[in-house]
């Protein structure tokens, strides 16, 4: 939007407020509908079992070598980058909606996990990580003597 620096109607510009409101409206509706693209990527789903937790993320177009998972105490981090296969200049683009670039995300888990017993699989673009609670961290059942 073009803003004039001088005041054409003197000090009391009757349209100044209108322009300000219009500018705010434009900003409000800018990117309306694209807001679903959250800043945290990738979105993850969690499931909990008795003593384990499953994390799942959709990462289509990646291969298992493009994803890096690191675990420390109660924190899991996923990192990766999308390969840029068809990025040659000859291609004439019509649509470009698929994610590109690199991503990194860390998520806090509800309990400590055993870093030696992690099962990570990547199938049809979906990453599934199953993590186990360490033996010494499991809640223990205490027998009550009569």
């Amino acid at each position, binding site marked *: 939007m073009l803003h004039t620096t001088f005041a054409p109607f003197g000090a009391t510009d009757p349209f100044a407020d209108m322009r300000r409101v219009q500018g705010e409206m434009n900003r409000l509706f800018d990117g309306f509908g694209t807001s*679903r693209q959250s800043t945290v990527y990738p979105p993850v789903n969690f499931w909990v079992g008795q003593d384990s937790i499953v994390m799942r993320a959709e990462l289509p*177009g990646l291969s298992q070598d493009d994803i890096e998972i690191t675990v420390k105490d109660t924190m899991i981090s996923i990192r990766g980058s999308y390969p840029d296969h068809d990025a040659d200049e000859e*291609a*004439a683009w*019509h*649509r470009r909606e698929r994610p590109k670039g690199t991503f990194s995300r860390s998520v806090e888990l509800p309990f400590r996990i055993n870093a030696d017993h992690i099962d990570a699989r990547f199938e049809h673009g979906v990453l599934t990580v199953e993590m186990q609670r360490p033996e010494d961290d499991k809640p223990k059942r205490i027998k009550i003597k009569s």
Partner: protein
Amino acid sequence: MAQELTTQGGRDVAASNGVSNPIEKAFTPAVDIFEKGEATVVLADMPGVTPDDIDVTLERQVLTLTGRVKSHAPEGYRRLSSEYREGDYSRVFTLSDAVDQKKIKADFKNGVLRLELPRAAEAKPKKIAVKAA
């Protein structure tokens, strides 16, 4: 080149007219469409779909992509948090150029469908020689 028939805003539920039927939900897969040489290439993200559950049809100039996702919640687990939803995928395009149906290539890898649609011979620009009088 490839025009979308049903306009949907990204990965939203296609038919959400107040009815919350979990079976009829279909997501719009994100696509990349570009022209490379003699072919139009379509890439569509359909994570969670197995290659057998993908359906691609081309009728006249209408290209329909559908993918079915089998519910695969881990057994013996309960949902803790959910940032994305799973569901079937569906998207329809109309192509402006005629496609050589016999030479279509389709493959599915890592949750991405890749289609190569070569232009039909009659759709290619022909050079017309102008004779001098």
